[in-house]
């Protein structure tokens, strides 16, 4: 038995991302079960839900890292599920994605990590590249660490360097995969500030996966909750916190029902 979405459609006139009827299974395990969601240009959407609810699988579909069994993902007018691999590769340049542990290349220093997409996809001179690297590190409030190796950085710093690398090509869409999980409150607050700053300075569309409702209140225009591969509710953070849906109340109180344990 599936729970119907309370409010999924937004009727946005010009959505940046439209997800229509998305289904995905791995073997016998059905992870996504008919997700419909629209994300507007410049909007910050926060996706919450328990472990194993399908959040990471969902976000990977947005950038074409996974192909759905059924359904469509339309980004800026291009259907990722029908586009050729070349088009998908080109479309990914519009994205910046950050990963849970930063996913920095550990054989490269911080500067080379951030410079990687710039060198790969632009014809900028080395001087321009290092200027952009400095700029990006300034945006994530980590100036002067260009020569450090990823192993020398703390967890919070690694993630922020990951942010710097994600914005190096000035993307239109930023995807954050659990940016604050496992961080102390000070680092969590710092990450929230950085995300807000990136949004206000770059005007990007942002999709963030998190368990952290404090972060939701701070950076999200809308919050979507995913349960058992379906969107249960999409609404403003304020209305989300006031929702009387039993599962959302349980989620907010940290009481995930037995059947939702991964």
């Amino acid at each position, binding site marked *: 038995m599936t729970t119907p979405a309370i409010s999924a459609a937004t009727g946005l006139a010009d959505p940046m991302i439209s997800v229509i009827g998305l289904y995905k299974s791995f073997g016998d395990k059905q992870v996504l079960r008919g997700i419909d969601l629209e994300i507007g240009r410049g909007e910050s959407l926060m996706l919450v839900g328990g472990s194993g609810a399908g959040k990471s699988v969902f976000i990977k579909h947005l950038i074409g890292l996974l192909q759905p069994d059924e359904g469509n993902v339309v980004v800026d007018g291009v259907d990722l599920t029908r586009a050729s691999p070349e088009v998908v590769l080109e479309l990914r340049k519009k994205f910046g994605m950050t990963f849970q542990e930063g*996913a920095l290349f550990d054989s490269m220093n911080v500067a080379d990590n951030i410079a990687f997409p710039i060198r790969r996809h632009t014809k900028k001179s080395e001087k321009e590249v290092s200027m952009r690297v400095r700029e990006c590190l300034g945006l994530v409030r980590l100036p002067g660490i260009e020569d450090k190796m990823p192993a020398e950085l703390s967890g919070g710093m690694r993630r922020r360097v990951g942010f710097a690398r994600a914005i190096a090509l000035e993307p239109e869409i930023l995807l954050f995969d659990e940016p604050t999980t496992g961080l102390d409150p000070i680092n969590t607050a710092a990450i929230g500030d950085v995300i807000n700053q990136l949004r206000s300075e770059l005007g990007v569309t942002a999709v963030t996966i998190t368990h952290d409702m404090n972060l939701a209140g701070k950076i999200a225009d809308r919050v979507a909750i995913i349960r058992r591969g379906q969107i249960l509710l999409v609404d403003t953070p304020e209305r989300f916190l006031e929702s009387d849906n039993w599962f959302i109340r349980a989620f907010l109180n940290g009481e995930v029902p037995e059947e939702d344990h991964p």
Partner: protein
Amino acid sequence: MVEAAARPAGIVGWLDHFGSLIIRALDDLGRFFYIMASSVMWTFRRPFDGAELMRQMVRVGWDSIPVVFLTCLFTGMVLALQTYRGFERFHAEGFVGSVVALSLTRELAPVLTGLMVAGRVGSAMAAELGTMRVTEQIDALYAMATEPIHYLVVPRVNASILMLPILTLVGDAVGIIGGWLISVGLFGANSYLYMERTFQFLEVNDITSGLIKAAFFGLTLAVTGCAKGFYTSGGAEGVGRSTTSAVVTASLYILLSDFFLTKILF
């Protein structure tokens, strides 16, 4: 994967086990050919990363010289030692140089170089790509509009194809010198005659076919290492499994393909 506890008993269980082994082997082979075909396709696409190719050539080639040097030197020495003692029985000691040279160039240098580099470099490729897979660095490459096969696999495969024949040439030379050292130094053979016999029966085709084999082994070990790393799952334990499996599988592929290549080339 089939759980051991759930496996039926008797002949059905045995067939079940045998079937799952075949499926796994075919799965491995499918991944091998997919990675090989993809790397061929991406080799001709821009951007060409010359710096990364050079870096990999140093890792595969230059850094492997000591291990290839020692392996082939001692193989040449032991080959001379064995054949000298054997040939002495029917007074054919004069042909030791020819036997050492032919055995090394046609068979031992390419195969031993392939096996040693598979252990040294193929395993490192599997470990490196496996770690990148489990720490989401490969996903990060995709997210940065970079095809991981293009950036990671192509330079490793091409460097191996280019460097294995060069390493084999080094192995040929060092092995022949090893044989000479034992024959002349230990058994008191005539140095001039030994070298003359070494090259008397050696044809260009003996050397070139050995080098063709070596290039093929380079392709095999690099594609196996990269495929094992690329499809790693299961965290640190998975990386360990991929690394071991890369060496075992690459060695097996090298030995199996050696037979067929020898049949075709000689």
